[in-house]
């Protein structure tokens, strides 16, 4: 059975093993940095927080039968984690000449920190072979189940960065036309720094002035606000969840930032808490089910045999996955 639970230090090596091909740049790639991140994530689950820093969560997808770790998903309670969270805001200026009776809209990219301190979904990685299964939805939406169960830790809006267009030979058109000139490094390097270092180097190296879109290369203009084709399943899932691309794009690859009002996320609207009861059937509609606070948070897929006003009947195997027993409160949400 696949289930999502908070990452522990024991998961360090398995997470590093997930593979090279993952899409997330927000997960550290070195052992030490990842260890620190896991420790911080674990500490964040403590209801009474000792440190002043914003909570950052990291979950793993675990096969309870084999112990295999097949994916990760994260939530930063405050984008930027106390530092500015950088994006470009797409907007336009109007250049007008009264005498020549001409008025033109000029597309601009303004450096912005407006999304700083909003809740951010991040660090999503999943083994290739599971990408087209229900497990994909489990891993992604488990975060929304967690948010629903710990709503006070999160802000009224939630955002998620979608990877932007990358060419087959590795070139990133948006980066090559813009960021490369100022950061003097290739996209991979900058992307890694961004994941590992404080974002100060962005403030230091990014030009403070807005950028004229028309001066970007054609390929960069075409890539602006476009998701990487490989992210399509993720993009679609987030859209079903209620996320929409707005006017913000990533400063490195120009990929879209999707935004949603946290309280109107599908999982938060459709999920309900019920009392756990047993069922002998292994059939029924597959639902997300989660339980537990903080370090005890678990989320799985389960067939739901029957749900009454305040009760839900699920197979006892699901109880074990949740580490809960009859009468305990659980949260369910349809797929």
């Amino acid at each position, binding site marked *: 059975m696949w289930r999502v639970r908070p990452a522990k230090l024991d998961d360090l090596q398995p997470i590093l093993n997930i593979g090279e091909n993952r899409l997330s740049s927000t997960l550290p790639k070195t052992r030490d940095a990842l260890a620190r991140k896991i420790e911080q994530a674990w500490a964040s689950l403590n209801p009474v927080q000792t440190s002043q820093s914003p909570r950052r969560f990291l979950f793993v997808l675990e096969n309870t039968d084999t112990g295999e770790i097949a994916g990760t998903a994260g939530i930063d309670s405050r984008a930027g984690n106390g530092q500015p969270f950088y994006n470009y805001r797409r907007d336009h200026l109007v250049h007008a000449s009264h005498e020549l009776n001409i008025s033109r809209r000029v597309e601009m990219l303004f450096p912005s920190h407006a999304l700083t301190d909003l809740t951010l979904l991040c660090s999503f990685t999943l083994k290739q072979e599971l990408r087209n299964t229900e497990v994909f939805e489990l891993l992604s939406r488990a975060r929304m189940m967690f948010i629903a169960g710990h709503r006070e830790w999160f802000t009224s809006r939630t955002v998620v960065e979608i990877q932007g267009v990358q060419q087959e030979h590795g070139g990133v058109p948006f980066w090559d036309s813009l960021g490369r000139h100022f*950061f003097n490094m290739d996209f991979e390097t900058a992307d890694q720094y961004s994941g590992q270092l404080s974002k100060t*180097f962005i403030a230091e190296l990014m030009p403070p002035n807005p950028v004229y879109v028309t001066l970007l290369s054609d390929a960069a203009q075409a890539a602006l606000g476009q998701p990487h084709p490989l992210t399509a399943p993720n993009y679609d899932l987030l859209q079903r969840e209620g996320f929409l691309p707005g006017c913000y794009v990533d400063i490195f690859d120009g990929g879209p930032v999707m935004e949603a009002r946290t309280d109107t996320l599908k999982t938060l609207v459709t999920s309900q808490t019920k009392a756990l009861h047993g069922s002998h059937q292994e059939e029924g509609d597959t639902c997300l089910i989660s339980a537990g606070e903080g370090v005890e948070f678990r989320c799985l897929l389960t067939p739901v045999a029957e749900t009454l006003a305040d009760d839900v009947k699920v197979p006892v195997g699901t109880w074990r996955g949740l580490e809960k027993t009859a009468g305990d409160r659980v949260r369910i949400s349809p797929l």
Partner: protein
Amino acid sequence: MLVIRPLQNDDLDDLYAMAQKAGKGLTTLPADRELLQRKIDRARESFSQRCAPEAALYLFALEDLDAGKTVGISGIDARVGLDEVFYNYRLSVTVNASRELGVHVRTPTLNLSNDMTDTTEICSLLLSDEYQGGGNGLLLSRCRFMFLDDFRKWFSEKVFAEMRGVSDTSGHSPLWDSLGSKFFDMEFSQADRLSGLGNKSFIAELMPKYPIYLPMLPDEARAVIGRVHDNTRPALKMLQAEGFNFNGMVDIFDGGPVVEAFVHNIRTVREAENRQVLVVDHAMAPDAPPDQRAMISNRSFRDFRVTTIPMTCIGPDTVNLPGEVADAIRVESGDQVRVVPLKDGGLLPVAPLKGV
């Protein structure tokens, strides 16, 4: 004999003929009779001080007295940017550095600037093809520095000239094609023409106001920023010899450089000296080469006249002028004139020792 004098009403036909021949590229002197007439009117008002000093446009004609024809024009715009807004790009550098990453990047940047506002511009130089050479171009250009020198209070401390930037034979400017045209659907030649007709500031309103980072422009556009058109190279060399330097400003359309100098540092100004006229009855040495000639001005504001004479005419205190030369620049014996070598590197004969 060739003489510099204020532009007059009856110069219209000659000017128009010159402008027609010059074709595209000389935006300050378009082949448009009405516009040329307006320029003449403005010049006449300026020399007669019927307009505000800061609105003055002094235009000088180079007249071939023997042919009775105007063969060149040059000008001084007393103050730019007071009526309309005067734009340049300033070629700047933006430095971004991260000590943490050991990265230090210098990005050349164009910043829109109005900094030449209220400054004196030398402009509108045009010399007929058949009069090129023999120092006529020098006379036409440098006579202006003698005027600036004698009437400094009407001008700014610094003066500048906009040099024509690079464009190809069909009138395409690489900078315009990669920058201006992205903000304004117009061919460079058309923009340039409108600019010459006085609509430059209107076009500028449509140009980008935020800094342009050069690495985002294509190579061919970057290559022409601060570079002059091949045809303008001699003019640039001449101004450099006078002490003009590139001041970091470029034209917003074609990227041509702006060069500037403090009036008091201009070679013509530094080297000019006063002499008394002595009208003599022997003729001048015929056709001394340009490097042995001097410009001589009558120091008159309303009827400013300059011609060139062999340096052999110049003594320690006086200058010997044949009657016809004195007539041409409207001076008599005893009048004070100002003389300066036509070419740099020349030195007035018997220069009085300074100091010691």
